[in-house]
């Protein structure tokens, strides 16, 4: 498929899923009223439900999914590893640790994305160092390092929960971070996330050509004239920015970063200049739909969206692992 056509199709899919996301919710609102509320012509409660509760939630889901999709594409490209994604590599766990720590310290809400970014950057740097030992990255090293980092971050989070009185009073917030859920965010929080995701995606696009050269190994990339140290560092920072923004909004949402690049690479090809925007749109669509599923599966109760992505993503992960183990890339 031609990249332009694929991207246009993904854009339409995102718009459609966002529309579904705004139409469905805890309270039944007719399609006409939804349109009226969006246009500002509905009664006050309906307007509040659609514009202040449902729309921000759909936007948050789209941001989280898009950020994780792009982060997954970058990590898979950088590590030349089909199983890399922010969740599996422990990058999300590092970001969650940062978020929990900032909540524990009583930092204002807008500091959380920064703390999440710091945690994500630390973990992804460790992964990258480990992956380079011996000059080649193996699937196993990355996965094991991810498990270790996730366990470590989990242990510190538990320690914080038990040790900090302040945190104990905010148990729900911590639970939300660990379990992964999208919620209605304030306009300010969304604005910060939009700025981070947009900036990081533009940066990722600027790195796309250089990242393409990594497909044959870092040395080859270097011989092709790529400044690999700077490029690698940039990719790590962009990945951490995206993961941090996603985790600060929704906690630990698993496997989106793994599944989306995999699903889209056969369609749009491996060139990052196309893969990155495709993953942004595809990840956003996937998480908006997953969140919709989370809201209606057990209505009126809501599932955390992480449950849906885990249910879909884990079998997919095993499938990719089986193929990777057989040497089929």
């Amino acid at each position, binding site marked *: 498929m031609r990249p332009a056509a694929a991207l246009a199709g993904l854009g339409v899919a995102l718009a459609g899923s966002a529309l579904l996301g705004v139409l469905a*919710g*805890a*309270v039944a609102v007719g399609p006409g009223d939804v349109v009226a509320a969006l246009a500002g012509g509905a009664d*006050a*409660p309906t*307007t*509040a*439900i659609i514009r*202040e*509760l*449902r729309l*921000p*939630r759909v936007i948050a889901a789209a941001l989280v999914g898009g950020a994780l999709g792009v982060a997954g594409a970058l990590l898979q490209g950088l590590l030349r590893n089909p199983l890399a994604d922010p969740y599996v590599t422990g990058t999300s766990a590092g970001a969650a640790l940062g978020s929990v720590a900032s909540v524990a310290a009583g930092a204002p809400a807008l500091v959380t994305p920064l703390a999440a970014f710091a945690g994500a950057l630390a973990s992804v740097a460790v992964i990258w160092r480990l992956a380079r030992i011996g000059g080649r990255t193996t699937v196993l090293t990355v996965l094991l390092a991810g498990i270790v980092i996730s366990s470590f971050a989990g242990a510190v989070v538990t320690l914080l929960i038990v040790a900090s009185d302040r945190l*104990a*009073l*905010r*148990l*729900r*917030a911590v*639970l*939300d971070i660990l379990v992964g*859920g999208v*919620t*209605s*965010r*304030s*306009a300010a929080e969304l604005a910060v996330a939009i700025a981070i995701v947009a900036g990081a995606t533009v940066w990722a696009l600027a790195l796309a050509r250089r990242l393409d050269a990594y497909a044959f190994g870092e040395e080859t990339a270097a011989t092709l004239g790529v400044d690999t140290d700077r490029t690698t560092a940039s990719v790590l920072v962009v990945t951490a920015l995206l993961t941090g923004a996603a985790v600060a909004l929704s906690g630990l949402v698993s496997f989106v970063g793994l599944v989306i690049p995999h699903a889209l690479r056969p369609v749009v090809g491996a060139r990052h200049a196309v893969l990155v925007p495709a993953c942004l749109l595809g990840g956003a669509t996937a998480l908006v739909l997953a969140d919709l599923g989370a809201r209606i599966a057990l209505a*009126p*109760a*809501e599932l955390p969206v992480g449950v849906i992505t885990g249910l879909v993503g884990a079998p997919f992960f095993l499938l990719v692992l089986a193929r990777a183990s057989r040497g089929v890339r």
Partner: protein
Amino acid sequence: MRALFVAFAVLLSAACGPAPASIPAATPSASPSPAVVTDFQGRTVQLPRSVSRIVSIGASNTEFLFALGAGDRVVGVDDFSDEPPAALQKEKVGGVKVNLEKVTSLRPDLVVTIKFSDGTVERLAAGGAVVLVVDPQGLGDVARSATLIGQAVGADGKKLADDITKRLQAVRERSSAIAAKPRVFHEVDATDPAKPFTVGPGSFVHDLIELAGGVNVAARAGSPYPQLSAEELVRADPEVIVLADADYGVTPEQVASRPGWSGMAAVRSGRIHPISANLASRPGPRVGEAAEAYAKLLHPTVFR
């Protein structure tokens, strides 16, 4: 997980309030003959002839014991028992998890405890002490709790029960004369303001709201501590919001600034009131006081 959390939240909120005055203690009566009673878990319990060392697990149970004049015989309480202040001086036997070794070391001849789903009650009983499960949930359970605990410690629980019932009845009579019943949202926890925890049928606060002359917006919820979506809440449009989480730092200003909440009648008219979590989270001997406090919030011109 969610049910566990609610238990947590309720226990936590129970643990963190200021300390209002308590009901005067009833006079203990002469030691009655040993009796066999059925407790809140349906267990048949042979009460001891005399009780001199009591361990109390559950903030409401501790309040009952002190209100019945058995406070000086209490040798240990759980971490959430903060009322009356004298309870804070007692040995602690744990919170969400009861420390069985600690309980045993206090050599109680009676353990009054709330329900546990993890086998704590059975393990306590295996330890040799007489274990009486008293776990009031609704307002209707309060009189039975007072009577049962009174029987167990040889105090006049019936009189305490009657006093509480009379006090509740007085509020009910005054509020039932009021025609306008405001729609009430009682906030237990809104860490995620899109899905706040509230009270539903089966919880004593739900009973309190009705008794005080209000209509609970979560009256059709299927559980005592349900989560309500903010969408449903906006549609229900509460006229009064009562913050049982004010002790955690939630303020009316914060509530008004939450996404989507600004259009609610209670927010527009400024009828957002904090209530002491310590008073409004446990169905103990102070429920009469809680009912009066609630009625003042709902009908400030009638209840002064």
